[in-house]
């Protein structure tokens, strides 16, 4: 179920997804380290880091699709709904999705270098 690109929920949905991802990442890391900690000597290439990287790519990909959908809806070619209010909502939402996508990906970047549980 995707809301119409002109629905105001889009203004916050991207960042809500980012926030949930953040909670999942932090919570998952804590639980992963509590129950199945990889050895500290293994460095960064552990199952925890790899899993978080994969999920991050999925979340980012989804957010980018949303950003693209909103952006396309606001382009002049789909002029049928090009009222200023609709354009405002869809363009701003596209930017919010984009920011969320970048932010979601950035969160896991230190995982390339740092071991998870120390």
């Amino acid at each position: 179920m995707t809301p119409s690109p002109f629905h105001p929920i889009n203004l916050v949905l991207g960042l809500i997804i980012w926030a949930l991802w953040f909670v999942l990442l932090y919570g998952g890391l804590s639980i992963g380290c509590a129950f199945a900690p990889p050895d500290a000597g293994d460095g960064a290439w552990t199952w925890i880091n790899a899993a978080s990287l994969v999920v991050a790519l999925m979340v980012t990909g989804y957010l980018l699709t949303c950003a693209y959908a909103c952006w396309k809806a606001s382009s002049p070619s789909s002029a049928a709904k090009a009222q200023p209010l609709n354009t405002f909502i869809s363009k701003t939402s596209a930017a919010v999705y984009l920011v969320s996508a970048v932010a979601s990906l950035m969160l896991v970047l230190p995982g390339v270098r740092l071991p998870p549980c120390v």
Partner: protein
Amino acid sequence: MFGWFTFVLVVVVGLWLYAIRRAPEPVSKARARQVQNRWILWGGLVLPITSMAVILAFGVPAGHQMLPLPPAEGKALRINVTAHQWWWEVQYPDSGIQLKDELHVPAGVPLDLHLTSADVIHSFWVPRLGGKLDMLPGRTNVLRLQADEPGTYRGQCAEFCGTHHAHMKFTVTAYSPEDYQAWLREETVND
């Protein structure tokens, strides 16, 4: 880092003041939009993101060295420190030495300080040796430090811990390896 940030500060403020002084010619709407977007894109997105990338590129490896990972060669010296309101209990598990408000360590050897607290939260900090780490009741945190040069270093509690927080201090004395062995012998004999 400080240099770069000072530079950013001066440039941003300078631009603002210039922008206030400036009396622009009227320009076309399209041109105005272009100028606006350029400002926001470069100043609002590119500048902070590149600054962050640079900082992280330096910062993450630097933080990595402070982790209590097994050192490349030799073994880290373990010392247990327990904080009390308002003094420090120091224990050497290898040699059984007990001290109060002072640490004696060999220079050039990595130290693993096992920190905990007997009452409230304290924080172990020797400003000239490195970062601080909190000492929590019921938990043990491990801080990796190394004194590169022999000498005396001031340390103090960095987390507010009650009335005499300001006076909760200690010293770290770092010796050359031979002097450290001498100190160690003397301490064990005294016991």
